[in-house]
């Protein structure tokens, strides 16, 4: 990361830096699998209210970073905090503030949509008095009121993804973490899911952190992005600024190539592999 031109942009959010309570702060975050360094001294700051995209090819370390943030892995070096609370020291408090949608399509196919959401309402200790209402609200926000009484095995991939969003939202999370939210979905379902996420962003005051390797999606939906490659952050900034730095007609693909050394083909390959895996998941679920 050192030596790379870093484009950082002040966000519109009012003065969060003053209080020192960013939504997410990673400093020197490192994780190794054996001799392979998956995440290599990552520094990252995400401000409250922004939609932040972590971009990179498969194996860039995005998911490992997310897993440390969501308390599933303990950082080997450095630390990560959510709204000022250290994820390794106080995992339970951090978990209560985040909603997480993993890469794989994962809902309990034998339960109904409503039961899936109620399960997470219970696991997040949503008080009984408001539980039913919160479950219905989350389902309605994701346009799933009508099929909520059906078992999830009858759902399409896009519906399962929306159901997962409803599960994550039922706790009104402060930080929504989406790991490759549209992988494995067909183009129509992708747009559909994004519309729901965008609508959500308008109505609720929450921070969204997502990983993706679809440059077009990041360009359209993210306030700021970080390009990750081989375990480290290569550039950070708004999509517009990153593109402008490379010239007038640059696309985010160009930016990506510029910082990662033209590994977009690898990205494509990884992308297809991922799609296959997600498809398998979808088949198993339905």
């Amino acid at each position, binding site marked *: 990361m050192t030596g790379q031109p870093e484009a950082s942009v002040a966000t519109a959010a009012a003065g969060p830096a003053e209080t020192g309570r960013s939504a997410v702060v990673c400093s020197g975050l490192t994780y190794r699998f054996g001799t392979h360094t998956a995440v290599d001294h990552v520094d990252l700051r995400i401000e409250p209210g922004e939609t932040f995209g972590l971009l990179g090819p498969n194996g860039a370390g995005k998911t490992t970073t997310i897993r440390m943030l969501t308390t599933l892995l303990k950082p080997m070096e450095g630390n990560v905090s959510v709204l000022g609370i250290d994820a390794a020291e106080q995992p339970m*408090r951090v978990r209560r503030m985040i909603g*997480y949608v993993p890469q794989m399509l*994962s809902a309990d196919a034998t*339960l109904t949509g409503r039961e899936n959401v109620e*399960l*997470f309402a*219970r*696991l997040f200790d949503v008080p009984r008095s408001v539980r039913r209402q919160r479950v219905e609200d989350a389902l309605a926000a994701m346009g799933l009121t009508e099929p909520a009484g059906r078992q999830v095995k009858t759902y399409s991939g896009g519906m399962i993804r929306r159901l*997962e969003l409803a599960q994550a939202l039922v706790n009104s999370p402060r930080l929504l973490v989406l790991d490759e939210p549209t992988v494995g979905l067909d183009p129509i379902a992708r747009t559909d899911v994004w519309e729901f996420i965008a609508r959500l962003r308008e109505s609720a005051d929450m921070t969204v952190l997502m990983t993706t390797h679809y440059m077009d999606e990041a360009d359209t939906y993210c306030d700021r992005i970080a390009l990750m490659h081989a375990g480290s952050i290569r550039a950070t900034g708004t999509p517009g600024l990153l593109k402008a730095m490379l010239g007038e007609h640059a696309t985010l693909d160009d930016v990506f190539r510029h910082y990662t050394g033209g590994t977009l083909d690898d990205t494509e390959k990884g992308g297809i592999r991922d799609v296959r895996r997600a498809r398998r998941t979808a088949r198993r679920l339905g």
Partner: protein
Amino acid sequence: MTSAAHDVPPAVSADPFPLLPPADTPLTIVRRLFSRMVTLCWVELRKIRHDRTELYTRAIQPALWLLIYGEVFTRIHAIPTPQHIPYLAYLAPGILAQSALFIAIFYGIQIIWERDAGVLTKLMVTPTPRAALITGKAFAAGVRSVVQAVAVLILSALLGVTLTDNPLKLLGAAAVVVLGSAFFSCLSMTIAGIALSRDRLMGIGQAITMPLFFSSSALYPEKIMPGWLQAISKCNPLSYQVDALRGLLIGTPAHLGLDLLVLVIATVLAISASAALLPRLAR
């Protein structure tokens, strides 16, 4: 932070930094454990409601044991029973324990399925400590076993076995079934944490169920076993479960205190073991 006794983060407000969730107190930790047990048992009951076929197919095997094996061995009077009760009555609690064992010993398959489907990761990102997740699942297995046990009890009654009608004793028997299933399901989840694959778990499960069953007092009293088998039976939690069930349901002499103590200790140990192995599954 501790002064705010909320259990739930407050709703998002205009303040960019509204109250953060308070730190845990011992009370919240205990409450959370019970809440997770209730939640996961609730899920299990919903699943049974959605799909009852497993309930019926799992009733076939105990029915065969009681109808064929039980009836034949009752006629030939080969196995001495305490207080000379009919062998079928002696056998019924053993078969009850066996059907609960069969459910529990393959329960780890569910956790491997959840891991493969990414559900386990999602569960582990909720404020649910590992031990609470395992305990919840263990008791959910218990709930399923109790539902199955009711089927075996009805069958036994139809075959003429005189069972207790004391509701307290029936409740006690349900508790023993839950404890036994909690232990064996944790054993299964521990194996799942080591084997990490459905096929291997199936293989290991198949390999250990029959030895567990035959080395217990489910089919015959300990005193007619050879010495070495008696020793194994004394280490087998299933023997204690069967002993307690017989005492409660049929009224044979039992060591209820010891039985419960062994089952509780075994369950706690098994919960600890599988909770310790859970991160291996979620990796």
